[in-house]
């Protein structure tokens, strides 16, 4: 009886190890660029912000990681980021400014190979959007506080100016529908062209700045057509 039990354990371990060794987790990493056309009214209608161009309005940096969990299906994470940096110039103040809009796609993708090198893929996924606006400011109290600290260390030369960076943040949800065409250059490397839409449920209210709810910029980022071009590398 005891030997039977050990035999069963042995068989179970053997099957488990065999599964781990034989199964091929198909993990892939991708990097590319996206193109879209939002209307960022809150920034466009105010001359204080850096002027708009293709790089800070239409271009998206794109990276992602996918895992093939089922034949003809992958799950993954895909990030599309729109970044803007520059100087803001208000009447009494100017400072460094950064605006980042990040569309994080939690993708469920199905695919089939039409030809040995050509694949069609289909993605319908929830989107977690996040907007972050950062700006350098010069709070006056900070100068006094820092000088007190410096004095406690024995400094005699004090500062009369200091900057600090604060950010306001907003999260929202949305969904994306995307169809892609992938061409395999080798069994590991592929080029992927995708087209679809990005629908964001964004409201300018309820941005968070220093634990306070504030009104943010008007952005028209619902029902956005989107295109991406990526290089895929199969890690395993």
């Amino acid at each position, binding site marked *: 009886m005891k030997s039977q039990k050990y035999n069963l354990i042995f068989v179970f371990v053997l099957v488990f190890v065999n599964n781990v060794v034989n199964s091929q987790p198909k993990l892939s990493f991708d990097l590319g660029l996206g193109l879209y056309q939002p209307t960022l009214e809150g920034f466009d209608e105010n001359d204080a912000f850096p002027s708009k161009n293709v790089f800070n309005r239409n271009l998206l940096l794109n990276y992602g990681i996918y895992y093939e969990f089922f034949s003809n299906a992958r799950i993954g994470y895909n990030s599309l980021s729109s970044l803007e940096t520059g100087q803001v110039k208000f009447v009494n103040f100017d400072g460094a400014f950064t605006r980042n809009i990040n569309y994080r796609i939690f993708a469920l993708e199905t695919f089939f190979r039409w030809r040995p090198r050509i694949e069609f893929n*289909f993605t*319908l996924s929830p989107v977690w959007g996040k907007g972050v606006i950062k700006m350098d400011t010069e709070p006056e109290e900070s100068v006094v506080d820092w000088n007190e600290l410096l004095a406690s260390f024995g400094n005699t030369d004090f500062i009369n100016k200091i900057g600090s960076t604060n950010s306001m943040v907003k999260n929202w949800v949305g969904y994306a529908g995307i169809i892609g065409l992938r061409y*395999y250059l080798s069994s590991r490397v592929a080029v992927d062209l995708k087209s679809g839409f990005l629908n964001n449920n964004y409201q300018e209210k309820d941005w968070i700045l220093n634990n306070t709810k504030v009104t943010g910029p008007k952005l028209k980022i619902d029902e956005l057509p989107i295109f991406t071009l990526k290089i895929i590398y199969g890690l395993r």
Partner: protein
Amino acid sequence: MRIFLSLLLLFQFTASQEIDNQSYNPCEDPLLKLARVKGVKAVPLKDIRKFRKALRKCKVSQKDGEKKVSEIFEADWKRDYKSAMIFSSWTSTYSILVFMTLVYYYIGMIYATEPGDPEYD
């Protein structure tokens, strides 16, 4: 003692350098075997350089090496193609759903009207 040490050194340089070249066949490298049986993607990333080296050696040193190497890659293409050429289980329904959503979205973009459009006047 001096003679003994000299002999030891002599043997180090003569006997230890002998490599059995004839028994090594680069086309039978374990990494190439793995790629042949389970596919190129089964080769671990850390062994990719060794794998490429073995491929090169197999191509150059063996008479039918080039053919053997191309067979590995062709088999890999076929394996991937066979496994993904037909939708399995729920994936076809899901794909149709995505396709229909996109068609609906684009038709909406072209034909949908909003308050303020000429149709409302």
